[in-house]
């Protein structure tokens, strides 16, 4: 998914695509001090990236949540108190006022890149 602001992004290579679990499970990567949760969804062959910090518990755990869908939206459920976050937008489904950073991603030559604002 490419957007107008993409040019302002700093694309960071975080891992190889084959490093990610291929069974709809999350994994975490560290970029400088930022912890990022990556989710590779095999049915659509796409990678999603969210900030790994669960705002409800303050723990870096979202990569360890269960991936699923609510209606048409892909979500991850926090493993601590089970709130759901939209994989595309970072919006919390249970609490309108809460959302977490969602990062654009792309896969180039087998590498996973994450777009961070520069």
């Amino acid at each position, binding site marked *: 998914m490419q957007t107008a602001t993409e040019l302002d992004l700093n694309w960071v290579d975080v891992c190889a695509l084959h490093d990610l679990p291929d069974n709809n499970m999350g994994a975490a990567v560290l970029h400088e001090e930022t*912890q990022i949760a990556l989710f590779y969804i095999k049915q659509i062959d796409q990678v999603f990236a969210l900030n790994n910090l669960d705002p409800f518990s303050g*723990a*870096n755990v979202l990569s*360890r949540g*269960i991936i699923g869908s609510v209606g048409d939206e892909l979500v991850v459920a926090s493993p601590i108190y089970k709130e759901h976050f939209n994989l595309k937008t970072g919006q919390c489904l249970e609490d309108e006022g809460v959302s977490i950073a969602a990062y654009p991603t792309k896969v180039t030559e087998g590498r996973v890149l994450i777009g961070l604002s520069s």
Partner: protein
Amino acid sequence: MSKKTLVVIGNGMVGHKFLQSMVNSDVMQDYQIVTFCEETRLAYDRVQLTSFFSGKSEDDLSLVEDNFFEDNNITVHTGDRAKHIDRKSKVVTSEKGVSISYDKLVLATGSFPFVPPIPGHERDNCFVYRTIDDLIEISEAGETSKVGVVIGGGLLGLEAAKALKDLGLKTHVVEFAPRLMAVQIDDGAGAVLRKKIEELDVSVHTQKNTQNIVDGEECVHRMNFADGSHIETDVILFSAGIRPRDDIAAECGLALGERGGIVVNDSCLTSDDDIYAIGECALWDGKIFGLVAPGYQMAQVVADHLAQKDNAFTGADMSTKLKLMGVDVASIGDAHGVTDKAKVYTYVNGADDVYKKIVVSEDNTRLLGAVLIGDTVDYGNLLQLKLNDIPLPEYPDSLILPQRDGSGATGLGVEALPDAAQICSCYDVSKGDICQAVSDGSTTMGALKECTKAATGCGGCAALVGQVLNKELEKMGMDVNTDLCEHFAFTRQELYHMVRVEGIKTFDEMLDKHGKGYGCDICKPTVGSILASCWNEYVLDQPHAALQDTNDRYLANMQKNGTYSIVPRITGGEITPDKLIVLGQVGKKYNLYTKITGGQRVDLFGARQEQLPVIWKELIDAGFETGHAYGKSLRTVKSCVGDTWCRYGLADSVSAAIDIENRYKGLRSPHKIKLAVSGCTRECAEAQSKDVGVIATENGWNLYVCGNGGMKPRHADLFATGLDFETMIKYIDRFLMFYVKTADRLQRTSTWMMNLEGGLDYLREVVIEDSLGLAETFEQEMQTVVDAYECEWKRTVESEERTKQFSTFINTDKPDSQIVFVPERDQLRPARQDELTSTSAD
């Protein structure tokens, strides 16, 4: 306005029910209540008295809610008998000299067991069967005895015989009449009942008139009968009927019946307008009602009369259904067919020892009475036909004939019942009450029981309550949505069935065949658990890993800061000093917060994700295996130290617990399962608060099921008694497998059982009597799970690829630097939010 004084004499079942009725009534505010309780124990459940011998405690039997008297400001004089009523000055005086002036007085003095004046009836070791004190004495006498006799083969006599049997005595029942339960059943039924009871190794002697009791040669007593025969015995229990306790009423001149009993009218008023009598001491229309349900009705009538509400006692149905020594017995209405020109239909099945009889009106259209032995399934239907005067089918015998052609039971649909039909007689719940509760939102059996109390007394009406519930739901057009989640339009039980029948091995296969979308955090762990229950494959295998709930995915319990706790298995709570030292060393080395759990294990907190395999490697090398504390699975089998060390122990509870834990460890289930084994009824392992609890008795193991602690604690129900270890394991296999197969997601055994139509009785039928013919399958399936067991952590640490999955980040070996601990009482704990901000500000 000052309050009036209401004195209640007697805190038995009916007396207490009256107090409860008052507390629930507005009229309570007008009265100050004082009650006398002759026994030192407040009201307890006399109907369940026999269960005292099979392991129930005094507390279990108590009917008094915590702080009932304090909270409701009722004064109670325990261990003090009201002795005298002065009707003129309206004062009650007690044995201990307490005098209370009353405005209104309620007599709930109950009855006493009739002891025939046989010469020798006052000898030692001769007892009656009425109070907990009686039972304690009988039980003490039982310890030095071999043989016991019950005089009286009525309902209570057979209960008492069961008690003697439970005490391990060779048991005889001696009855004056030509058959057992002479009042309730006829000769044909009596013969079937007798045969069944004799099969249980209880000798039955009918038409025996005891002449005297003298010293025996081999036993304490010798009972001589009029026909010249005799029996030697060590213990004698008299159970020859009850008599109303009307002495206090007689002394103050209240009207009594010719053969005793305090005469009352429809409002339960005696011949004195300020004195009521209720329960077994009251004589209404020339009849004493020796069952608890009519007593409860009377209690309500008096509470209503005091509140000037319309209510009247109009007699009670004396139909009964019960299990006597494991034999189903039921009697309805005119069981003997004494009604003029009544017609009788009988069905006798000599092969299965089933006897059924119905008594119908001359014109074949109305049911008058019935007797059922060996199979009481028809009881609910027949009783409703009788009570509601419902026209019978063209051929009334179809009501009791077996349905073998698949045409289904003839009975009547619950729809034929009027709203006023009483479904639960223990708590007087009508069909209308149940319908109302359903439409108010109690749409499960469990919720209905909680809301209406129906089916929570004797449980005899459970099937009927279930039918009413289903019919109502159907009528409301309420398609009860039992879908697991939006991805699967099935219940957990249906999914389980698919996995078994279609041999489904992965979540993806399940989703492809029967689901939609991507799954979610509800269906994924559920299917993961079912797959594990059925096939017991390694849960972190590629297709299963993504299904696992938070804790299962890393085989450890996630704590609030994202770190994990580790609980190695310590079977039965037994651990060597060396292994204990290893736990200490590991805890110290990795700086883990260490705590003893309630399940007799050690919990090590604060391990980071990437540390888990390293720590477990050390634990496995020292001989530990996983404790499954993270799974919806068998947790612990708690034990007391047992007869190996304990002065009171009756069996080796530790060995038993270890065997049981090793058998079921690793079993994945709808919710966590906890077990315990106690070596005697002192119950130090708290087995009665577990899903499965085992208590050693002199006669073998007593098995309890469906208890739990937690948010809604529930005492376990006594399920079977006097088992040998092997039989007990079979029962537990069947019980657990039945639960695993049929329970809903996150439903503990107690809720599951409550929602089974037929509840505990049904569970017994399935597990003990094998009514579904599935016992062998359950055992085989359990054996498959047992054989497939492997320690998940052992398997995990053996492979580098698997341990790699535990690294916190896939692009670096660094740990999560945001996990912060602070010291407390010489150990570490997670930093609180405010402490975090202060550290980061440094």
